[in-house]
């Protein structure tokens, strides 16, 4: 079987005056988990809904396996989707909700109990969804996404409302599915969680693509920042500078070398026989990358006035 693909080309969506998605292009590969990140209102949900044929693009295309979602022969067996503000009839049980979808798509009814089991809702499956907690509804959404055993998973904030066990379970499930060859595209605001889950990130800001690449490359690409304390800060700065390592003095006896590696700094220190009191190494976190790539969203970032 051909590996699944997702591709977005010059995708644009305008809601009245609001340009929600603006000439967005990217492609996503199978066998990996791709994070789709961006501040509130960046256009993630809109882009994913266009990919799923629920929102009509103003211009551009969103393709799954080379065709628009609407033209897929078996959409539910090709793409599984978890979406915010997807609904349930409150009076219908989870099992009946899934069975109606299974009937519409030719998925065997026994698969309904399988996915309920998988998401931990087996014993609650006959209860009316109106009585479900937020996390249970989210699990039901996941069950629906997995119903058709799709090769592509599109998840909009799937961890919403999940308890810590649920989040850990979801992470290992997504890692496992990607290792089995699945294409997983997941939007999330939980950056620490995403950093543990994704192989690749796409960051969008105000509808534009802000960054895309392997998570490791994006975070490690700039090298790491090495902080040192030394008895001879002036001499260390000139030694580092002599080897073209960007550095600066900080308060007291501290020196910070940037965009380098601990090994490179260590060699300089050893060659010039400088006494080191302390040395720490830090790489950029996904959160720092996110902040540097996005304008911080449309919400005010200033401190709330104290009352």
């Amino acid at each position, binding site marked *: 079987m051909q590996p699944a693909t997702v591709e977005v080309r010059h995708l644009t969506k305008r809601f009245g005056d609001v340009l929600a998605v603006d000439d967005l292009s990217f492609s996503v590969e199978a066998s990996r988990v791709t994070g789709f990140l961006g501040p509130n209102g960046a256009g993630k949900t809109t882009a994913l*809904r266009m990919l799923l*044929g629920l929102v009509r693009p103003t211009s551009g295309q969103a393709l799954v396996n080379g065709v628009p979602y*609407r033209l897929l022969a078996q*959409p539910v067996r090709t793409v599984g989707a978890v979406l915010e503000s997807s609904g349930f009839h409150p009076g219908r049980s989870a099992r009946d909700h899934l*069975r*109606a979808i299974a009937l*519409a*798509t030719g998925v065997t009814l026994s698969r309904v109990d399988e996915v309920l089991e998988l998401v931990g809702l087996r014993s609650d499956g006959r209860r009316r969804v109106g009585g479900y907690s937020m996390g249970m509804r989210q699990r039901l959404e996941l069950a629906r996404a997995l119903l058709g055993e799709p090769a592509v998973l599109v998840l909009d904030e799937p961890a919403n409302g999940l308890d810590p066990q649920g989040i850990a379970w979801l992470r290992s499930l997504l890692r496992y599915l990607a290792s089995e060859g699945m294409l997983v595209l997941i939007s999330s605001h939980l950056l620490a969680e995403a950093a543990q889950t994704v192989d690749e990130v796409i960051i969008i800001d105000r509808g534009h693509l802000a960054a895309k690449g392997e998570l490791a490359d994006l975070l490690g690409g700039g090298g790491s920042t090495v902080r040192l304390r030394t008895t001879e800060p002036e001499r260390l700065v000139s030694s580092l500078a002599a080897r073209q390592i960007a550095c600066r003095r900080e308060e007291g006896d501290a020196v910070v070398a940037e965009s380098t590696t601990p090994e490179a700094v260590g060699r300089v220190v050893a060659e010039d026989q400088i006494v080191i009191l302390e040395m720490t190494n830090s790489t950029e976190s996904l959160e720092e990358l996110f902040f540097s790539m996005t304008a911080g969203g449309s919400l005010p970032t200033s401190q709330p006035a104290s009352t």
Partner: protein
Amino acid sequence: MTRLVRSEVAKLLTIRSSYALVLMTAVGTAGIGVAVALAPHNHGLQRLIFPARGTPAWYDIVFSALALAEDFALVFGIIIMTGEFRHKTATPTFLAEPRRGRVAAAKLVVSLGAGVVVMAAAVLAAFVLGLSFVAAGYGDIGEMAGRLGHVLPGYLAATVLFASYGIGLGALLKNQVLALVVGLGVTAVVEPILIAAWPNVGRWFPSEAARSLETTSRLAQSGFGADLGHLLPSWEGALVLVGYALVLSLAGSLTTLRSDIT
């Protein structure tokens, strides 16, 4: 398409409001039937002679309560369509079948069945009511059942078509409350006014088209005395209702149903 129809049937069978609607139709039909049957014979406002209890003509009037099923079928059709938007199940529904017109078509098919079920409940209630009157000494069972059998086809056709008209209205308007207000408002307010003022316009409206299908006596339909000469021939009335269902569904599929699901 068969799959979609089965899915739509499963959806209806797994919510209480479907059963509630069917039950309400039965109770409402029986209630109106009783009220009509017990209405005083010589009410001052009634210009025409009210037929004697137990006569076939009297049973015609009692069974005119079956017309209530038309309104319930309309509500049913509207709910089948607009419930998807009200409860946001449109997202999973259209993920499963992104060709939205096919979903509307499946709902149209299912609405016909829903109309039959609503009518069955009404007829059952009417029959039980009829049996009670026979037991109380009004007329005989053969005549009673005969009248019921005579009026049934017309009400059935009108009810089934009203359910599909509800689908069309729901597809076009999408908003449940709006569709109910428009659907019932046209039937209960707009049409009576039109009929009084411009009967030749009013007859093209849904309830008047439905009335042309009814095989009951004009006396039972007329509310005692109104002139019903304006009604369309029944085959035209049927076409008009089919037209409402199809044209509204098609228009909805091309406009509202295509709109963004956000």
